[in-house]
């Protein structure tokens, strides 16, 4: 060896593999405005589609007249439900086992529902035409309060379901009832409550909100009538599923449908489902024979495609006097809007809400969820959430604080007392999950020590006393959230979408010169997969990440996968990538053995190649092996160096974290200032700490928005309030708090690289931390629970109701 030979450390650094803060590959094009988003696509002859929408929340449609619209030069067609019936697409199935109107079929069920689809030469003409499509409505009584949906005299929202006593998820008990979903042991739980020293019960609502990525939902559909091939470019978090659904609905064979998800401007769950816009664009291109683009505007996005949450959770906890929890009972009233279009794995009508026992060792628990229809937009998507986990985490974290208050215990101490202990993992929860790994006490202690938790409590107490002496009008809250997520959907034994098991996939091809193309079934919407997937491969096969190209989103070239949402990419596709890479490494080992004329068992892996055990000079780098794979493979071995892996995870992964929010509130203005926000995340093995930190910052900002003001509200007429950025709270750089991040590492024992996923944790854990801070601040004035969102007006109102304004 001479001095020029790189050291092991240098060779390792050159890979830019797992654990390093690799700068993002994507940024080169994004910082130059060279991303390729759907609306950037321009095809020859392309026309534009846009919707006529209902101003009413509940009405019969007696007439649609497009005569005047069709007179406008440049207007090509106006599609209504009657036209769609011809191709059997007036209604479409939802992921939740319901059906949904594509275009209003005789009636509308929510404001802004799609009534007709105008196709015109450009978006301006389409808009002109929309104004003159005449629709006659006959108003019907409106139902917006989910608590009144099952009143005997509640209006019938879905006449199409009349007489249907059995839904996709069991019996229906009322004409506006969708399902009841029950989990856990009712008798054991009742026993725990009858024997309890202390119980609490509280209605904890998680209001309706919206993922609202900066890029709305959009697509371009193009039918080639000569070849019979349909191409659809769209904002699809799950492009392969969209292709399968498109094939099933259109009866075009799947191999003749090309679904491509180009760069996506944020998803957060909004872009998982199939929306009327996609169906109408596809029908329109089939009818007209020219490419059709559909792009939502912001109002359409906020008011029609996929709300999130709207869960009204009644939580009860049974406990002993010393704080040991003995039972949990939760009932949820779930407002699904006009159609049940929840984007959950098919067998899970309330997603993974049964993670509601959280980080605590509840010996008994029972959960029942009732889904109901109202005159609101359909959806119920997982807004940066693994299927109702955010709701569950909020429910249990709020309830634990309420229990601590009743017991007169410190909420941190109550949590510490009831955490699942490290030696209990793998842990079987009372509601049916097997938690893979965790060390909650260490994470909690680290968070408390870093923040100086006890000192903060002392400061809070002093402030409360000063407030009561009339010396200050400011109060202080300390919000704690110790969440356990369940992500990585999921094992085929219990997770599928329309029958397709929720595996994911990776294909890796090493070229003769040792560079790599790799493709996955996932689809980044900002997560940085082009950067991080290459890091996994780099570490596994010793080829620099810079020489590895990652490609996702093209269903013709990528292996089939279920897409990116629910923090499933790293737990599922990340595993597939590692396993595909290991197949390549195994073959490389045989080739290296042949090249070095030794047995493969005499070789050991060393960062970027194989070396003979005890003789590190005798080695072959992966680049040399790649060349040999194409140039002179061992006799009898297939040439080439590539592998595919489809990974069916044995279990979910269970990331967790300790979040603390310190807040100062002016009781006279209701203005809440976040003094500190500390987020400790444990997502197992960390692939790129820079990206993890970025994800946590972003998720916390979403959590801040949701907890402190972001809401999709409806008035009694069913008018949607908050469907523009004027009314819907998206924090700017000015309101957004400063984030402090930290971590512990508890690898997943069943994942090939021990990673768990992190994208959604900050949204899941952040909301309860903010809400608990507000609630904690007002506790000493006698408050038990203040509903979200905590905007200044509502905080002011709460202070007033508690007599804090004197």
């Amino acid at each position, binding site marked *: 060896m001479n001095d020029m030979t790189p050291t092991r450390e240098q060779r390792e650094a050159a890979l830019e593999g797992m654990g390093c803060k690799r700068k993002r590959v994507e940024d080169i094009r994004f910082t130059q*405005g060279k991303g390729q988003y759907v*609306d950037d696509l321009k095809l020859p002859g392309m026309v534009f589609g846009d919707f006529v929408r209902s101003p009413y929340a509940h009405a019969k449609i007696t007439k649609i007249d497009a005569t005047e619209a069709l007179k*406008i030069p440049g207007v090509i067609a106006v599609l209504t439900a009657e036209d769609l019936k011809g191709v059997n697409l007036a209604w479409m199935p939802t992921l939740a086992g319901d059906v949904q109107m594509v275009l209003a079929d005789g009636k509308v069920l929510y404001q802004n529902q799609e009534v007709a689809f105008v196709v015109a030469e450009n978006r301006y003409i389409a808009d002109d035409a929309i104004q003159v499509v005449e629709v006659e409505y006959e108003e019907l009584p409106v139902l917006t309060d989910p608590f009144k949906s099952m009143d005997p005299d509640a209006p019938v929202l879905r006449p199409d379901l009349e007489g249907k006593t059995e839904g996709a998820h069991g019996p229906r008990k009322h004409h506006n009832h969708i399902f009841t979903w029950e989990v856990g042991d009712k008798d054991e739980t009742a026993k725990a409550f009858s024997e309890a020293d202390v119980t609490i019960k509280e209605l904890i609502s998680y209001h309706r909100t919206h993922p609202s*990525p900066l890029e709305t939902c959009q697509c371009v559909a193009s039918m080639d009538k000569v070849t019979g091939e349909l191409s659809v470019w769209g904002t699809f978090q799950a492009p392969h599923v969209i292709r399968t659904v498109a094939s099933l609905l259109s009866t075009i064979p799947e191999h003749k449908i090309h679904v491509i998800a180009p760069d996506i401007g944020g998803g*957060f769950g909004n872009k998982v489902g199939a929306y009327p816009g996609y169906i109408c664009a596809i029908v329109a291109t089939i009818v007209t024979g020219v490419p059709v683009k559909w792009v939502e505007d912001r109002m359409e996005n906020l008011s029609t495609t996929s709300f999130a949450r709207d869960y009204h959770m009644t939580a009860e906890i049974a406990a002993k006097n010393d704080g040991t929890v003995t039972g949990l009972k939760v009932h949820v009233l779930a407002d699904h809007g006009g159609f049940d279009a929840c984007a959950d794995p098919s067998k899970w009508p309330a997603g993974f809400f049964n993670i509601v026992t959280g980080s605590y060792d509840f010996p008994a628990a029972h959960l029942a969820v009732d889904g109901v229809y109202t005159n609101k937009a359909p959806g119920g998507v997982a807004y940066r959430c693994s299927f109702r986990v955010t709701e569950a985490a909020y429910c249990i974290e709020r309830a634990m604080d309420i229990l601590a208050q009743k017991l007169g215990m410190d909420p941190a101490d109550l949590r510490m007392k009831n955490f699942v202990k490290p030696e209990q993992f793998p842990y079987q929860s009372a509601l049916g999950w097997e938690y893979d790994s965790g060390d909650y006490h260490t994470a909690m202690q680290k968070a408390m020590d870093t923040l100086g938790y006890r000192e903060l409590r002392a400061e809070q107490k002093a402030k409360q006393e000063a407030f009561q002496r009339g010396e200050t009008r400011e109060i202080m809250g300390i919000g704690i959230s110790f969440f356990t997520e369940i992500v990585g959907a999921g094992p085929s034994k219990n997770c599928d979408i329309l029958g397709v098991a929720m595996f994911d996939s990776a294909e890796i091809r090493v070229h003769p010169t040792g560079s790599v193309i790799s493709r996955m079934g996932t689809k980044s919407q900002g997560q940085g997969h082009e950067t991080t997937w290459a890091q996994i491969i780099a570490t596994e096969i010793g080829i620099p990440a810079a020489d590895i190209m990652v490609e996702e989103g093209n269903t013709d070239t990528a292996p089939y996968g279920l897409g990116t949402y629910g923090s499933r990419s790293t737990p599922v596709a990340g595993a597939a990538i590692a396993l595909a890479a290991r197949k390549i490494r195994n073959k490389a080992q045989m080739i290296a053995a042949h090249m070095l004329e030794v047995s493969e068992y005499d070789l050991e892996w060393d960062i970027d190649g194989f070396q003979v055990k005890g003789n590190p000079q005798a080695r072959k780098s992966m680049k040399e092996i790649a060349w040999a794979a194409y140039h002179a493979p061992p006799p009898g071995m297939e040439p080439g160096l590539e592998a595919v892996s489809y990974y069916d995870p044995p279990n979910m992964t269970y990331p967790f974290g300790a979040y603390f929010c310190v807040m100062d509130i002016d009781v006279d203005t209701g203005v809440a200032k976040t003094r500190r926000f500390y987020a400790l995340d444990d997502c197992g093995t960390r692939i790129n700490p820079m990206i993890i930190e*970025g994800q946590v910052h972003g998720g*916390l900002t979403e959590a801040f928005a949701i907890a402190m003001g972001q809401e999709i509200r409806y008035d009694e007429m069913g008018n949607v309030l908050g469907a523009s950025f004027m009314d819907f709270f998206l924090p700017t*750089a*000015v309101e957004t708090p400063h984030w402090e991040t930290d971590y512990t590492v508890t690898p997943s024992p069943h994942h090939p690289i021990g990673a768990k996923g992190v994208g959604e944790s900050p949204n899941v854990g952040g909301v309860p931390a903010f809400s608990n801070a507000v609630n904690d601040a007002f506790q000493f004035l006698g408050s038990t629970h203040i509903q979200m969102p905590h905007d200044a007006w509502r905080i002011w109102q709460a202070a007033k109701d508690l007599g804090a304004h004197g």
Partner: protein
Amino acid sequence: MSEIEQVPVSMTVNGKKVQRFVEPRTLLIHFLREELNLTGPHIGCETSHCGACTVEVDGMSVKSCTLFAVQANGAELTTIEGMANADGTLSALQEGFRQMHGLQCGFCTPGMILRAHTLLKETPNPTEEEIRMGISGNLCRCTGYQNIVKAIQYAAAKLNGTDFQEAAE
């Protein structure tokens, strides 16, 4: 309804003179994206709230979704496509966004960089508070702004020839 008469419009975009006929109601963002194929500026709201369409018009930050193309007649415009250095390398701001992980999905980035570009001309050495206020017309859903602030501080330091001191976390 009759077809709308088209009117001439000319402007200098990224140093290049362009001339087109447009309907008077054509928004500047659609003119840039659809007539000039400059798809860097994005449409996030069409109501002036999100700033994804931000470009520079005669030295001012402008949300191009709320300006008619004809209102920019005769103006000098810079879009994200005109931000790289003359030799094709990333400018200080573009480099700052990459180095500090100031972007994720990339959708707000062209508008954010253009706003930061004008901000640094207005305030060459901004404090964190001035940066946060200065970009408050541009929404980002991914980053939580913390790293965007750092990216702009990085660029400011580079442009001022000073060392970039990353604030302690």
